[in-house]
């Protein structure tokens, strides 16, 4: 029997990025005693890497902007598969969430009249992204971190204890969401530093763990992005939604090899950077798809004029949504028109003087100078697609962020699905974190307050703790011939990158599923050296379970969806099919869990999307809707 420390909280938030911290702030302000638990140090979450900005239709730079325009852009970007109520709430609430950050001390770049400056970005009709140079994510995370500290200072004054009502358990990992019956009862965790197990008992748990990029070889994501929340939800019985949609950001570094995949912000293009192939041609003009034809410039001259006079010219096609640009770059490289290291050229040096580039894109300047010996104020960068974001995620209720079928379990941020449909617009992630982080915290706190009475709190059973402890310790008991977790991880990354990557084919995805099954068998024998104190090999061995589970979801859903849409491109089914528009693919755990590790863990269920509310549909021209909606939807 595992003797572990138990602590009681009202709300446990798993993850301390933008969504997790915003959820924790809200839950604590609503009176819930709130614990945040995160794998890294407080303030290091992947949100710090967000560069371009936060999308919110404040209309500070172009007063034509409003929530309806933002909603339209978001739906178009997601190819109408977005959970429309989320897209609506997001567009409506984003400005308040940004302004609120200022009251907590954030310092955004300013317009000449002293308001928050907003910049252009792909897929956004107006300059919409509030920003701080190209380090907006850092500003967001630091502001939220400092707001948490401010709340702790209040608690210190009142209770003499900084952590009386809000505590951050940093460098701790959750391996299981615990339940009594159907209801959430807490989380099973280990402290990375000591390897010690502990249980946080709570009636409400918010998953805010971010994405899955570490299952792919070329990625802009940090080590933490191992799909933990996705897997925790599945293991607790909550389904995932549309996991086939994975965003490959068009511009990652391609050279040197050790930095391949590191993000090059879309702001480079928003601020006037152009994409050229090895022949010097601005190839994006050849890749404007029909649905966007009327909205983008047809000549370089028009595109160039747009930067000065956006009201009378159309935007250049470098600012198409990310899925379009990533596919175009991929095609150019395949056609033999790539740069020396297998990317294309991105050049901002001819658009702006060196000093302005250094001011507007300081970390890009620094990153290329330090890591690649490239001076972006004088020469082009080499860039290519990199796995960046997963649109799919835990199925949630739009209003409350509650998961499906597991009372007490909530999800927000990248780990939640629906908001972005099949493709996310740049800048819509940071706003998503704030809007739905707040909603998750709010509803988790309310749920916890209700759940505390009259039936009492759900209990955590010793049997569940023992099972979770045994699972976590298994890598130390691997028999002879144990598998190296690092090797397994590399093979998984190669499999997903090569077989379920940016361009997909039926045969390759089927092969990926076979390889994943073989990897599951080997992962069951993953073994580690040393002891439990800060042992990265052990941590990786435990994260592998999550990556394998989530990768199976991606591959299975991608094989099922026989069309191309947003972040899911099939060479064998190249067209977007209107008949697929109203179809959601849900990944459910096979129940009971099969004993054979090679057996499928995930089954797919098709559900129909909720009809889009008529007043929201009325925001679009009929001619545009015809391009997206299924025949029967047009007459509903």
């Amino acid at each position, binding site marked *: 029997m595992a003797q572990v420390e138990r602590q009681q909280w009202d709300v446990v938030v798993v993850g301390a990025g933008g969504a997790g911290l915003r959820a924790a702030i809200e839950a604590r302000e609503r009176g819930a005693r709130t614990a945040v638990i995160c794998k890294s140090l407080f303030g*290091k979450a992947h949100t710090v890497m967000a560069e371009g900005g936060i999308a919110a239709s404040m209309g500070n730079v172009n007063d034509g902007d409003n929530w309806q325009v933002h909603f339209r852009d978001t739906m178009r970007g997601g190819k109408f598969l977005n959970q429309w109520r989320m897209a609506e709430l997001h567009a409506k609430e984003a400005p308040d969430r940004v302004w609120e950050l200022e009251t907590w001390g954030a310092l955004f770049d300013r317009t000449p009249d002293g308001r928050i400056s907003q910049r252009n970005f792909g897929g956004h009709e107006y300059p919409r992204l509030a920003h701080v140079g190209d380090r907006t994510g*850092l500003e967001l995370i630091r502001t939220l971190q400092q707001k948490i500290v401010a709340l702790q200072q209040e608690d210190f004054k009142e209770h003499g204890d900084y952590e009386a009502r809000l505590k951050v358990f940093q460098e701790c990992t959750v391996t299981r969401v615990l339940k009594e019956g159907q209801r959430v009862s807490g989380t099973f965790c280990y402290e990375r530093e000591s390897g010690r197990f502990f249980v946080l008992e709570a009636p409400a748990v918010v998953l805010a763990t971010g994405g899955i990029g570490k299952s792919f070889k070329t990625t802009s994501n940090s080590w933490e992005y191992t799909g933990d929340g996705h897997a925790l939800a599945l293991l607790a019985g909550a389904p995932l939604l549309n996991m086939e949609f994975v965003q490959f950001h068009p511009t990652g570094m391609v050279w040197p090899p050790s930095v391949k995949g590191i993000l090059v912000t879309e702001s480079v293009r928003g601020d006037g950077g152009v994409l050229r192939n090895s022949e010097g041609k601005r190839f994006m003009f050849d890749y404007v798809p029909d649905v966007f034809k009327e909205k983008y410039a047809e000549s370089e001259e028009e595109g160039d004029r747009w930067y000065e006079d956006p009201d009378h010219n159309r935007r250049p096609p470098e600012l198409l949504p990310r899925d379009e640009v990533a596919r175009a770059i991929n095609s150019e490289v395949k056609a033999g028109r790539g740069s020396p290291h297998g990317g294309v050229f991105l050049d901002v040096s001819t658009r702006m003087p060196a000093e302005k580039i250094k001011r507007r894109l300081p970390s890009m300047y620094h990153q290329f100078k330090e890591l690649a010996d490239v001076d972006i104020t004088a020469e082009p960068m080499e860039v290519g697609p990199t796995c960046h974001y997963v649109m799919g995620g835990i199925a949630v209720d739009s209003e409350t962020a509650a998961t499906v079928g597991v009372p007490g379990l909530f999800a927000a941020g990248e780990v939640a699905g629906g908001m972005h449909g099949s493709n996310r617009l740049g800048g819509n992630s940071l706003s998503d974190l704030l809007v739905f982080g707040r909603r998750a915290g709010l509803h988790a706190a309310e749920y916890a307050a209700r759940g505390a009475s009259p039936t009492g709190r759900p209990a955590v059973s010793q049997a569940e703790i023992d099972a979770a402890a045994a699972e976590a310790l298994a890598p130390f008991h691997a028999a002879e011939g144990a598998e190296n*977790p690092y090797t397994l991880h590399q093979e998984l990354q190669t499999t997903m990158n090569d077989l379920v990557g940016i361009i997909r084919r039926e045969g390759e995805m089927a092969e990926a599923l076979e390889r994943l099954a073989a990897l599951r068998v080997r992962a069951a024998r993953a073994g580690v050296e040393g002891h439990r104190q800060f042992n990265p090999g052990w941590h990786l061995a435990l994260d592998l379970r999550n990556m394998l589970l989530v990768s199976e979801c991606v591959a299975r859903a991608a094989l099922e969806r026989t069309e191309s849409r947003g972040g899911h491109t099939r060479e064998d089914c190249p067209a977007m099919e209107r008949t697929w528009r109203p179809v959601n693919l849900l990944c459910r755990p096979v129940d009971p869990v099969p004993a054979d590790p090679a057996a499928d863990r995930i089954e797919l269920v098709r559900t129909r999307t909720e009809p889009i509310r008529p007043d929201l549909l009325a925001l679009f021209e009929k001619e545009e809707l015809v391009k997206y909606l299924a025949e029967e939807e047009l007459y509903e």
Partner: protein
Amino acid sequence: MSTYDASFRVWRGDAEGGELRDFTVEVHDGEVVLDIVHRLQATQASDLAVRWNCKAGKCGSCSAEVNGRPRLMCMTRMSTFERTETITITPLRAFPVVRDLVTDVSFNYQKAREVPAFVPPEGVAPGAYRMQQIDVERSQEFRKCIECFLCQDTCHVVRDHEENKGAFAGPRFLMRVAELDMHPLDAASDAGLDRKRTAQEEHGLGYCNITKCCTEVCPEGIKITDNALIPLKERAVDRKYDPLVWLGSKIGRRKG
């Protein structure tokens, strides 16, 4: 692409003690020290403890001392060393070792809590904040800080003087005080909080004798000493010795 074998000495151990261990590792073109540490984990020492996150110089996790200099391992390129050179990696010296290259940095989180938060101006609604770019730029420079704590590690006030840690917030958090003091809309003084005075009296600004070691190691290139600490000292001194200010602080501000 050229590949060679490099000699590394990596400190391994825990709070009880440890030693430098020798490794020979393959190095490829364009790699950074963190790549080499990862290769060590994958091939020779799976339990080698190290912190890292973004591997792009943005999160400030992979701080260590490379050949005795506080550095981010992800931003230290192998090409800056001779191929024959033995490269030594040790944990940050100013903080207690947890294991291998991981140190206990909780000192910094304690100090963060001791700096009173931003005070929003009363009567200004969200959305109504107006500030000029030129006025926010000074504090924005300090908000570039990625909290790698290299400045805290190198600062001689605490580097070999454990006894000073109680009274001294360190460059990072004195810079935080300066940032708030220079924030165009911080209303701390209206709330009865004199940030300049507290810098001196509560966060140990007086210990700093502007040797600029912090500025030298800052991977973000923030002019910590020149732009944060010296101006803060000047303003704190003005307060302390200016008789009119002194008198004003004694009789209190009239509120209308």
